[in-house]
C-alpha cells in the first residue's frame, strides 16, 4: 500500500515533480488552461486574465515575503514602476511589447535594488513600513514627474501586439499571459529548489544562523528583492496592457495589502498557494459582485463597495484565525487524510 512519497536521493528531493501523478495532473492542468478561453465568455476571460496577471505579481511577492520572510507592502509601488515603464515606452516611444515587458521587469528590479539596500538592516515590521513608505514615495514621484508620466491624467496604452500580430481581444491576450504565468511559475519553482531558494529559506527561518552557515545574507536578501520586484514589474506591465490605461489610482496602497492577504489566504511560501490565493480573493470579489448585483437595486453603489470591503476584511480575519496555513494548508490536510485512510497518519 502506498503510504506516502519518499525521497531517497537528493535529486529526488529537489526534482520539479515529486511523482508521476503530479506530472499527469500538471499536463492536464496545462491542457485545460489552453482550452479554457474557447469555452469562457469574454467577461470571464477578462477576469481570468486579471487573475493570471495578479498571480505573476503575487508569485513574486511570495518569493520575497513567503520564502525569504521579508514582509513587503511595496507591491503597489513595484507594480506602478512596471506599469508606468510599459505605458511610457509603448505609448510615447512606440516600443513593441516584447521589449516593454522585460524593460518593465528590469526597471522594477532596479527599484527593488534601491529599496533593498536600505532595507538590509531592517527586519519585520520596520521593513514592512519602510516598503510602505516606498509605495507612497513612488506614487508621489509619478505624480510630480509630469513630463514623463503625464502626472495625474494617466497614460493610455496601445493594444498589445507581439511580432506584428495584434492581440486585440482578451482571448488572444490570454495566451500571452498564460505563457508568462507559466514562465513565472517555473521560475519560482526552480528558484526554490536551487541553492538560491534554500538560502532564502535559511534566511527566513533564522538569518543569523544562515550567516553562520555561510549564506551571504545581504546578497541573498538583495536577490530576493530584485527577483521579486522583477516579477511584480512584469505583472505591472501586463496590467497596463490589460486595462489599457495606467493611473496612480490603480496602484494605491490597498493593492499592496491585497497582495499580502492573497499569499496569506493561499498559504505563505508556496507557489501554488500564491496562485490559489489570487484566484480565491479575486474570485470572492467577483462572486460578491454577482450576488449583490442579483439582489437588485436595493443597495446604493456606495454600500455595495463598502459591503465588499467588509466581507473582504472579514475573510482575512477569519482565515488568519482558523486556517493560518491558508488554502494550501487545508488542501494538504485533506490530501493526507485521503492518502492515509483508514488510518489517521
Amino acid at each position: 500500500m502506498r503510504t506516502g512519497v519518499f525521497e531517497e536521493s537528493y535529486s529526488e528531493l529537489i526534482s520539479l515533480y515529486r511523482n508521476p501523478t503530479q506530472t499527469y495532473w500538471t499536463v492536464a492542468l496545462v491542457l485545460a488552461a489552453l482550452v479554457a478561453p474557447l469555452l469562457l465568455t469574454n467577461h470571464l476571460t477578462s477576469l481570468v486574465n486579471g487573475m493570471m496577471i495578479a498571480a505573476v505579481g503575487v508569485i513574486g511577492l511570495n518569493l520575497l515575503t513567503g520564502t525569504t520572510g521579508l514582509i513587503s507592502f511595496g507591491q503597489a509601488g513595484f507594480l506602478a514602476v512596471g506599469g508606468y515603464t510599459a505605458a511610457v515606452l509603448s505609448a510615447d516611444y512606440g516600443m513593441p511589447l516584447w521589449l516593454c515587458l522585460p524593460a518593465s521587469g528590469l526597471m522594477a528590479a532596479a527599484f527593488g535594488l534601491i529599496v533593498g539596500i536600505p532595507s538590509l538592516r531592517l527586519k519585520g515590521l520596520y521593513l514592512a513600513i519602510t516598503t510602505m513608505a516606498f509605495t507612497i514615495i513612488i506614487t508621489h514621484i509619478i505624480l510630480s514627474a509630469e513630463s514623463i508620466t503625464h502626472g495625474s491624467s494617466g497614460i493610455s496604452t496601445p493594444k498589445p501586439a507581439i511580432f506584428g500580430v495584434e492581440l486585440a481581444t482578451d482571448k488572444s491576450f490570454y495566451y500571452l499571459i498564460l505563457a508568462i504565468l507559466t514562465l513565472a511559475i517555473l521560475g519560482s519553482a526552480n528558484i526554490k529548489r536551487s541553492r538560491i531558494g534554500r538560502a532564502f529559506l535559511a534566511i527566513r527561518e533564522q538569518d543569523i544562523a544562515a550567516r553562520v552557515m555561510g549564506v551571504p545574507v545581504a546578497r541573498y536578501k538583495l536577490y530576493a528583492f530584485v527577483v521579486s520586484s522583477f516579477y511584480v514589474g512584469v505583472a505591472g506591465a501586463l496590467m497596463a496592457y490589460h486595462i489599457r490605461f495606467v493611473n496612480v489610482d490603480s496602484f494605491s496602497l490597498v493593492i499592496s495589502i491585497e497582495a499580502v492577504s492573497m499569499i496569506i489566504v493561499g498559504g505563505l511560501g508556496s507557489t501554488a498557494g500564491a496562485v490559489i490565493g489570487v484566484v480565491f480573493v479575486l474570485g470572492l470579489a467577483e462572486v460578491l459582485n454577482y450576488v449583490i448585483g442579483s439582489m437588485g437595486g436595493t443597495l446604493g453603489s456606495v454600500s455595495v463597495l463598502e459591503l465588499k470591503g467588509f466581507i473582504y476584511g472579514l475573510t482575512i480575519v477569519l482565515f488568519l484565525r482558523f486556517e493560518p496555513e491558508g488554502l494550501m494548508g487545508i488542501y494538504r490536510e485533506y490530501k493526507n487524510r485521503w492518502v492515509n485512510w483508514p488510518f489517521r497518519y
Partner: protein
Amino acid sequence: MDYFILLTVSGIAIGVIYGLIGMGYALIFKATSVVNFAHGEIMMLISYMAFSIASSWTLPFWGLLLVCVFISAIVGLVIERVFIRPMLGQDVFSTVMVTIGLAVMIRAVVVLIWGADPLLLPTDIGDSGVEFGLVFLYTSQLYAIGLLAFCVLGMWVFLRFSRMGVAMRATAARETTALLMGINVTHVYAIAWAIAAVIAGISGVLLGTIYGLGPDLWTQGLRAFPAVILGGLDSVFGAAISGILIGVLENLSEGYIGQGLKEISGFLVILVVLMIRPYGLFGTPEIERV
C-alpha cells in the same frame, strides 16, 4: 523669519496630533509587539461616534471628550477580546494582518453607518482661537497641545509608578518571564489596547474638531507612521516627540522646498534615519542571540 515661525508653529499644531496617534501605535507595539494597522480606523470610528453623541446631546468639549474616552476604552477592550486575543500564541505577522483586516472592516462599517459625506463635529469651541503675535491658533489646537502633554505625563506616571504599568513594562521586556512571575499577560494586553484606544479616541475627537470628519480620516493614521518609526516603534515618548518633529518638518519642507512634499517628507526622513538607526531615535535595539 516670520514665515519660518509661522510654519514651525502650525507644524507643531499638526505634529501634536501625529504624536498622539503615534503614542497609541507605540503603546500597543511595546506591550504586544504588534503594529496596530487599524489604529487610524479606530480613531475614525470613535470620532464618528463622537459626532453622533454631539449631535444628539449638547455637550461642552470636555464633556464630549470624557464620554469618548469612556466609549473608546470599551471599543478597545472589545476589539482586543474579539479579534486580537484569539490570535495569542500565533505568529506576530498574522496578528498584524488581522489588524489590517479589521481596518478594512471598520472603514466599511463607518461609511455604511454614517455615509461618505464629510461632516463637522459640533463642539462649543468652534472657530475660537488665540493670537500670539503673528500666529493664530485655534482653541482646539491649543487643547491638542495640552492633551498631548497630559497624555505623555499620564503615560509616564502610569508606566513608572502604577502596578499595571510596571507589569506592562515587564511584559514588554520579556513575555514568558513576565508570565512566570505571575503577571496576567492577557490582562496587560487588554489594558494596553484599551489605553491605546483611549488615546486614539482623544486624537479622533481633536481631529474631528479641527479638520472635520470624512471617510478618509483614517489616512491620518498612515500619516502618523513616520512619527512612530522615527521615534522607534516601542518608544511611547519617542513617538510623542518625533510626532512634533515630523509635523514641523512636513511644514518646513512644503514651505521652503516644494509643493506636495508634505505628504512624503516624513517617509523620506524615516528611510534615511532607519539606515543609520534601524530602531528609530528612541527605540530599544534588539540584541539577537542564536
